């Protein structure tokens, strides 16, 4: 790396705050032409916020972009494109029934002889040039929906290049690729490097970081911890940089209760949604953590067990009995799911707190199917008191509640249905510190009363401080298991990043 090279882009003091959380805190770094600049950090460190700021989807609250010493404004996708920044998100921006050339030049079609007409031959010629540059032997007339994920990704790269991107930001590009396809991608990246294109590469795979990275920047809690050269740093050091921080856990769990019988046992579970063979156990009285980096498949396991996704293989045993079925069958059998996205999947926002709280328990509270508002009110009030849900009244729509209180409703609604096994997905996402402690106290209460909990969390400290033990997932499978003594943030991260 020639240190005398002029940087392509410099970020100074970039900050971005959202209500309740500082996503980026005074981040500065430099991008050189032709380098592969790895960006790593655990979930929530700020990587995707940085990506969005770079491509103009977010505007930074503070800080500036510089190029050649001059400030550059990047406040919209158009600005970013003009400057030469292209971002390839995990959900592609491709139109399925248009061909490759049309997708590459969407919105920038070449004008034909008459106004409104498109010069197709020229479009295909130009598209061909780019595909050839990338070494892609695909016909430009292929419809995008016929392509596999790896090929679609190539089309996205081609699209970026056709816009003369000088900086390409890629978010976990190898997540959906096979080894062979990964190799091809790396070859393409090397080619781009040779032409001076800089690549900001977000990764969760330590091996990639060391194989492809020219420099590595570590983010943590929205701040830049440091930039290293892979040759000079060790994976351990990088992990320590990603992890070490002040733990603001105000919840101290007493690990006294010993675990009882096995409530849930899963063997080689496979689902249509990316679960590739998962086995785990949860006993009465335990909080078992399910950890792993974003995309590892944790939510998919939760959904498979609950029946929200189609199970294609493996076995689920609940209280020793084989179980498979739809969510309503799972609920009847005593399983509860607190979904990751509470607004879209856990609550009916326009319905009242009372309505939401009693829904799963309707069958048990009113076995003759005759609903009595008075009894429902009573159940709701009891839950509101017990969980200390702060709401102006049980009859306000649940959307007026704060995040923490909404989450209490999501958890609380299962208490009236006598569930025995709870799958909790990101219980404290978007919740302030005070409420977090209450949520954990609640979960603790559940297991003390004999339930079993499978807890998914991206906050490593939560897993370490709240769980009896934890499984770590990677690429749709269980990468390993950590017992209480082994449970540490570093160990979890190492297992999740494929670094032994």
């Amino acid at each position, binding site marked *: 790396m020639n240190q005398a090279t002029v940087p392509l882009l410099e970020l100074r003091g970039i900050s971005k705050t959202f209500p309740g959380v500082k996503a980026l805190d005074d981040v500065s770094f430099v991008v050189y032409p032709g380098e592969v600049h790895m960006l790593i950090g655990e979930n929530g460190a700020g990587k995707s916020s940085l990506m969005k700021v770079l491509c103009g989807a977010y505007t930074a609250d503070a800080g500036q972009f510089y190029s050649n010493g001059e400030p550059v404004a990047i406040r919209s996708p158009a600005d970013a494109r003009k400057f030469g920044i292209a971002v390839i998100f995990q959900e592609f921006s491709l139109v399925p029934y248009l061909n490759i050339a049309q997708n590459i030049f969407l919105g920038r079609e070449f004008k034909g002889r008459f106004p409104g007409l498109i010069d197709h031959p020229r479009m295909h010629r130009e598209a061909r040039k780019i595909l050839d540059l990338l070494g892609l032997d695909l016909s430009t007339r292929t419809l995008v929906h016929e392509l596999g994920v790896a090929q679609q990704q190539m089309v996205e790269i081609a699209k970026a290049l056709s816009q003369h991107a000088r900086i390409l930001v890629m978010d976990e590009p190898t997540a959906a690729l096979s080894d062979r396809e990964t190799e091809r991608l790396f070859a393409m990246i090397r080619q781009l490097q040779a032409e001076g294109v800089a690549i900001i590469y977000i990764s969760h795979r330590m091996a990639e970081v060391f194989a492809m990275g020219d420099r590595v920047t570590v983010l943590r809690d929205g701040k830049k911890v440091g930039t290293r050269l892979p040759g000079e740093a060790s994976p351990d050091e990088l992990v320590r940089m990603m992890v070490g921080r002040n733990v603001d856990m105000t919840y101290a769990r007493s690990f006294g209760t010993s675990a009882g019988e096995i409530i849930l046992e899963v063997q080689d579970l496979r689902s249509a949604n990316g679960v590739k063979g998962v086995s785990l156990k949860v006993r009465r009285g335990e909080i078992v953590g399910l950890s792993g980096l974003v995309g590892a498949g944790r939510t998919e396991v939760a959904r498979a067990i609950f029946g929200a996704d189609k199970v294609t293989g493996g076995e689920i045993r609940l209280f020793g009995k084989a179980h498979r079925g739809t969510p309503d069958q799972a609920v009847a059998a005593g399983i509860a799911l607190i979904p990751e996205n509470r607004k879209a999947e856990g609550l009916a926002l326009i319905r009242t707190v009372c309505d939401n709280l009693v*829904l799963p328990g309707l069958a048990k509270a009113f076995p003759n199917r005759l609903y009595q508002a008075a009894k429902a009110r009573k159940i709701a009030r009891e839950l509101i008191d017990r969980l200390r849900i702060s709401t102006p009244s049980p009859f306000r729509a649940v959307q007026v509640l704060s995040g923490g209180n909404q989450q209490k409703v999501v958890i609380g609604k299962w208490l009236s249905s006598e569930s025995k096994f709870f799958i909790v997905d990101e219980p404290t996402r978007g919740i302030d510190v005070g409420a977090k402690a209450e949520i954990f106290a609640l979960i603790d209460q559940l297991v003390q009363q004999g339930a079993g909990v499978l807890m998914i969390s991206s906050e490593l400290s939560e897993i370490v401080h709240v769980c009896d033990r934890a499984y770590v997932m990677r690429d749709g499978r269980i990468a390993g298991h950590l017992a209480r003594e082994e449970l540490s943030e570093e160990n979890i991260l190492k297992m999740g990043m494929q670094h032994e």
Partner: protein
Amino acid sequence: MNFALSRPGRFIGALTADLKTIGYRLAAALVICVILTIASDAFLTANNLLNVLRQASLLFLLASGLTLVILTAGLDLSVGANIGLSACIAASVMKLSGSALLGAACGVGTGLCIGVANGLLVALMRMPPFIATYGMLWVVHGITFWYMAGTTIYGFPAAFRALGSGYFLGVPIPVYLMFVFLTLGAFFAQRTTYGQEIYAIGANRESARLSGVPIARRLILVYTVSGAMAGLASLVFLARMNSAEGDIGEAFTLPAIAAVLIGGTSLFGGVGTVSGTLVGALILTLVLNGMNLLTLDASWQPLVTGIIVILAVFLDTLTRKRAEARK
């Protein structure tokens, strides 16, 4: 603790829960009445008012089942065609068997079957409701026409005709039916767990699914009820018209949807009441009645109904968008 309420208690409770939410609309209905009284001498006569009530009752019977469907964020465009086929089948069975009861049963049965078919298409084949019921509309319409083969069936026993044209204590019989089904409908929606689940499905289908609500079964239920109510409404219609031919019922779909929307039920699901639909049916009938009294051609009716539907959907969309922005 005994939570069982007496029947009258439940009835009143179910109704008042609904009625509280429709105050403005009742007021609007009243305002329309006042306007019409001023505009036309013929409005405030016993004959006219009873007529309005009779028409509104029929519309309500049809729209009540539709309300449940729309509550789940669905749609049933086949209700008009449903009335047509159910009435024709009821009529022909009555004639062939001589038994009004058997004919009536077949009429409601037909409506119910169409409803079940819709429910299966929507719930099991996952077809979007508007496509499924739109296709069903034409299929049912076609069957009706083919079955009737251009003939007309008329002349039914007086006892049956009383259902549509008769009076009891000075009030048209359909109005009694209206109250019966208002009670049943409000009761079903507000006082059964099925009702709660239906509201939950409309408010957020995925969330309801993940809370253990059996979505497919409930959807089939609401479409079946909608179909059965269309079947019932067809009997009242048949009794009133005293004849059945191939093209009846067509004109009911748009007014039924209008009644539900005016009544405050949102197309997007989860919001609305059966009582609201009653008031909506009343308001629409009053408007159309007013147009008649002012000797506007009957051809104006689809136009006005169409505009009302568009306005109602527009308001609904605005309200929903504003609610979502607040989230």
